[in-house]
């Protein structure tokens, strides 16, 4: 009924606390750097040459090459479907370009996230003018993502443990109760923030 947020989803969190030169670079600089690399990848037909640079950066940041490459590969399922469709319509060249372009782009993002804690990326984005509200919401969403999906998993476990079968209706009422409980949690968080003197 519910998949589980795997611990591997938090792997960036571990990697990003490293201490290489790339890790120490200011988050704003890195954001600009990787956005530029993304744009170059998007517009330069020969940008596959940049694969070398990407892997060099992974090694320079003392990150596990295979691990980062595997993270970026998460993009492939979607890409493969469309690459296949393009191939079928007779454009093999473009199909190939779709594959490497999306993979290279995913590598850049993975590199950014593997060398910069999310909260720093968010601060940098705020520095460049992203709306404060959006940044705050992202920060909370990220913080409670694990907590609430873990709870979803445990609710499903509880249903199974009492002999529940997978069913549409049970999933729906589970979600409704999860919503209720999340609502109550938001209320409690707000209370905790107010109690610690959050400015109004």
């Amino acid at each position, binding site marked *: 009924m519910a998949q589980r947020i795997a611990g591997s989803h938090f792997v960036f969190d571990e990697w990003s606390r490293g201490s290489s030169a790339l890790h120490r670079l200011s988050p704003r600089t890195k954001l600009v750097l990787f956005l530029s690399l993304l744009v170059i990848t998007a517009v330069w037909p020969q940008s596959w040459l940049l694969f070398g640079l990407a892997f060099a950066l992974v090694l320079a940041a003392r990150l596990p090459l295979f691990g980062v490459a595997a993270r970026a590969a998460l993009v492939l399922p979607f890409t493969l479907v469309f690459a296949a469709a393009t191939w079928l319509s007779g454009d093999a060249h*473009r199909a190939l370009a*779709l594959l490497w372009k999306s993979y290279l782009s995913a590598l850049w993002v993975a590199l950014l996230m593997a060398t910069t804690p999310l909260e720093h990326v968010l601060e940098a984005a705020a520095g460049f003018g992203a709306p404060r509200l959006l940044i705050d*919401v992202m920060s909370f969403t*990220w913080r409670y993502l694990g907590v609430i*999906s873990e709870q979803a998993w445990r609710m499903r476990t509880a249903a199974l443990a009492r002999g529940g079968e997978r069913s549409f209706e049970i999933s729906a009422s589970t979600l409704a109760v999860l919503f209720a409980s999340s609502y109550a949690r938001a209320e409690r968080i707000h209370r905790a923030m107010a109690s610690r003197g959050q400015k109004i």
Partner: protein
Amino acid sequence: MHIPDGFLSTPVWAGLAAVSAPSIGVFARRAQAGLQESRVPLMGVMGAFVFAAQMVNFPVGAGASGHLVGSTLLAAALGPAAATVVMTAILAIQALVFQDGGLLALGANVFNMAIAGVLAGYWPYRLLAGTRARRIGIFAGGFLSVLVSACLCLGQLALSGVKMRAEVLGLAMLVFVITAVLEGAITVAVLSALERINPQWLRVETRKNRPVLTALAITALLLAVAGFMLASALPDGLERVAGLTGLEGKEFHVLQSPLPDYEALTLENPWLRKAGAGLVGLSLTFAVCLVLGRWFVRWRSA
């Protein structure tokens, strides 16, 4: 439906980023206006909730299952402006941390799912929530939000020159329609269960006449339909549009003066020409959005 980087041509992703960024600014300001402080943790936790909810499978028989997307649910619980901001937060986290959707394509994904998806999901709900056809409104909301996002996504891919055969396209449409029906059904089921627990959570706006949002919603719908028709009718749509509007010629002049050394390159490289066209479009849209945004703020405060 999260478009990765590398799929969209520069004009498309840049143009959509230029539309989405200021729109989110406007929505954020809107959501913040009259925002009690308690709404920030609420929005954040609801983001996490939708994330978790998207992982809960809904079995539909024959071993198949679907899951909630959540735009309509969010819009019903938080109102459209806050829902848009929350959906944007979710999409951004998916792009950054889960490699689900690209970072340059974020503008496009936000446009498809957070802006068009939420508005398309909210309006049927808003219109019918107070009436006896409440459930129909909810279903239509869920259905439309997914379908509109999907059509926009396909349209943008086609506009970027990702070619698809008619059969493949038909198959994709079929999948999208099924997903959309499922989203409608799930949203109805979850909202009904929620109503039994505490009806106060689902807001039906009492304030009337919001011309801007209505206009935006209708535009989104029209865009979706137009985008899709364009996609299926014109495989290399953008060039045609550029040709029709005469952009093809103009962009050349714009590019020529600041970069004389690259003149030959510019002439010969169609991708640079496209990028140029994109930049022009980008600046134009950005300007339009800024003006619209300013006007909107002034209109709000007046």
